[in-house]
């Protein structure tokens, strides 16, 4: 056994084939193209089937990782997907976008000496296999309860709640402000990382189970939460995400050519502006593009700009590479595609011409000083180091906060000082009776899997409430 384990540790991980960087940097097709059955089984056989699997401890929703991997190794794909669904309603999404390197894979035993088992790739393979070859059979639905639940927001968190509660026999309607369901999965994360057809199919799966999806319903405007209760809803889940773009608040920010990442990515993804003029929504095409920020959102913006034909794309970030919040894989992909990193660089003002259009940006060089409250070394400006960067398009990806549209219309639901909804951590209950909340609107911008985990906990609590009371 020990010998066998040592061998597995040394076997390299089966790499997932990817489009060539030169080619993919100019198209919107998905970058990694997926495992074949043979590759998946080979990778699955690297798993040691640990009795106390540390990977599972790293998974925010506790997926039975060795379990589903073993089923792949045996070739039981139906069993594998059922196993995954037990804990994770959106494996096709999570397999692609979860930060596995800091979750399951980060803790995998095999990874101590060699490369960890490719849990994410295997998860993706399972879900893709089911989508392409599966029976499409629906999970069994519990006896109808006659209880009505409204889910506000069709992001990963709301979709999870809807999926869990429909199976338990409740009547579920999702209210979504945009004209398409999916949340960040459709408006934020680009096609080349998460094909929109996959998200659409996940939503369709819920609809086939009986979930009703009302798009174009801005809760707080079209209808209020109290009005939902008047319409005989028994419980409401609020999963409206973190939809308020932050800007830099430096001079010149309203020049034409400066967009929030939310706007830029919504145009590109939700409105499909990369197909302009075959679709009607335009998107500014930058020649020299600067992206401010260094998280996943910044990487997605930069890689989109490159695909739209930019000559140069620079990521400007005031700290060093170590502190970049984006996933390593995304930074690596971006660099491969020719995106430059301008680290330890802080923009101080935008420069524009007489037509009010952006032409450049003034920046300061920084150096790392003493650690700050967050334990990261604080960037300090180097005096007199001002320099100019030419750019005609700047995408501001420095984070997003809580959008007050719904919460300001719901005064009896308590918020914290940043405007996020206050909930009971274990149940997701808000201070308003019959209302739960979860995902980015509670935690601030976080991850898909955390939003889904919060959704699952809330769904359990809502179910208890509907059966037993508040």
């Amino acid at each position, binding site marked *: 056994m020990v010998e066998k384990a040592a061998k597995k540790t040394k076997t390299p991980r089966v790499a997932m084939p990817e489009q060539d960087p030169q080619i993919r940097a100019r198209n919107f097709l998905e970058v990694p193209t997926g495992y074949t059955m043979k590759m998946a089984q080979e990778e699955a056989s690297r798993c040691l089937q640990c009795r106390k699997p540390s990977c599972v401890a790293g998974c925010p929703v506790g997926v039975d990782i060795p379990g589903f991997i073993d089923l792949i190794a045996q070739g039981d794909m139906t069993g594998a997907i059922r196993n995954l669904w037990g804990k994770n309603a959106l494996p096709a999404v999570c397999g692609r976008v979860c930060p596995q390197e800091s979750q399951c894979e980060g803790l995998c035993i095999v990874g101590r000496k060699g490369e960890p088992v490719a849990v994410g790739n295997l998860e993706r393979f399972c879900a893709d296999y089911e989508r392409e070859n599966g029976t499409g059979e629906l999970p069994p639905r519990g006896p109808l309860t006659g209880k009505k639940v409204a889910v506000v927001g069709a992001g990963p968190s709301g979709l999870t709640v809807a999926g869990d509660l429909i199976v338990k026999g409740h009547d579920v309607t999702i209210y979504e402000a945009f004209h398409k369901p999916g949340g960040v999965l459709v408006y934020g994360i680009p096609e080349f990382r998460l094909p929109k057809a996959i998200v659409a199919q996940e939503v369709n799966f819920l609809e086939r189970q009986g979930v009703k999806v009302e798009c174009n319903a801005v809760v707080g*405007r079209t209808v209020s939460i109290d009005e939902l209760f008047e319409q005989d809803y028994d419980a409401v889940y609020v999963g409206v995400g973190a939809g*308020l773009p932050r800007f830099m608040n430096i001079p010149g920010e*309203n020049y034409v050519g400066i967009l929030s990442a939310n706007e830029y990515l919504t145009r590109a993804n939700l409105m499909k502006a990369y197909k302009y003029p*075959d679709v009607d929504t335009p998107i500014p095409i930058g020649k020299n593009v600067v992206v401010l920020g260094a998280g996943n959102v910044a990487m997605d913006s930069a890689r989109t700009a490159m695909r739209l034909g930019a000559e140069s794309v620079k990521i400007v970030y005031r700290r060093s590479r170590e502190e970049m919040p984006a996933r390593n894989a995304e930074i690596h992909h971006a660099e491969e595609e020719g995106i430059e990193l301008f680290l330890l660089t802080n923009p101080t003002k935008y420069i524009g011409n007489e037509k009010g259009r952006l032409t450049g940006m003034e920046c300061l060089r920084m150096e790392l000083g003493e650690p700050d409250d967050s334990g990261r070394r604080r960037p300090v400006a180097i005096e007199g180091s001002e320099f100019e960067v030419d750019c005609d398009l700047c995408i501001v990806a420095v984070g997003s906060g809580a959008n007050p549209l719904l919460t300001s219309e719901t005064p009896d639901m308590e918020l914290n000082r940043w405007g996020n909804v206050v909930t009971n951590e274990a149940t997701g209950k808000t201070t308003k009776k019959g209302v739960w909340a979860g995902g980015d609107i509670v935690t601030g911008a976080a991850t898909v899997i955390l939003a889904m985990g919060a959704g699952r906990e809330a769904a359990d609590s809502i179910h208890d409430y509907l059966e037993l009371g508040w």
Partner: protein
Amino acid sequence: MFKIVKREEMSEGTVILNEIEAPLIAQKALPGQFVILKANEDGERIPLTMADTDPEKGTVTIIYMVVGKSTALFKELQVGDSFQDVIGPLGKATHLEKVGKVICVGGGTGVAVLHPITRGLKDAGNDVTCIIGARNKDLLIIEEQMKAASHDLRVCTDDGSYGHHGFVTEVMKEILDEGDTKLVVAIGPVPMMKAVSNITKEYDVETLVSLNPIMVDGTGMCGGCRVTIGGETKFACVDGPEFDGHKVDYDELMLRLNAYREEEQKSHDHYCTIRDAK
């Protein structure tokens, strides 16, 4: 789907009125609020103010000028056709209260936007004079409705083909000179709102304008609609669309409205080529 139940062409076919089935929105909408419409799957999200609503019938009325590709596409839709998406009501409603003597100034399709506000101000017990303008008589819209919505209607045309020969600002000045005006509401092309605000500032009369920057979501989520009000950045879709006319940076708004001009021209040409080929 949101069905068109009534359609009219005005202003020599450059301005179109659509009455659309949207019961949820019709029940909630207040004067000053807008909707976002999308014609079909590949369509653009276009903000338009509700010129009227009928909660009982469950309809909202929009009046829009055909200026580019999306509005040209809207123009093709006939009674019985549908918009794929209509979202609303969006934006803050106009604060309607009794202040006394009020002047409502409208230009172009801004007159349509002004209609429910004018009526609301009259219903709130104000003495409302309305001034509307157009380049010539044939381009004038909803004159009858505006007459009914106000106590006194004055019409101006740039070429003198009807009513006062000249700009709305000239007539407004005459009324301001009579004194007592408590509030001016101005809605129309940006240069008109700017001119009105410059004048009312001299008279120190509170002025409301309705801004129409480029929008995407209309829910405060993208920041594309940002405008500068008294030196501060605001999102017109949620903080507005109405603002204190004396504080608006109109020059910036005009520059930002032209952000996509080249792309839009291309798109419109592309659309016309395809349409004409059919």
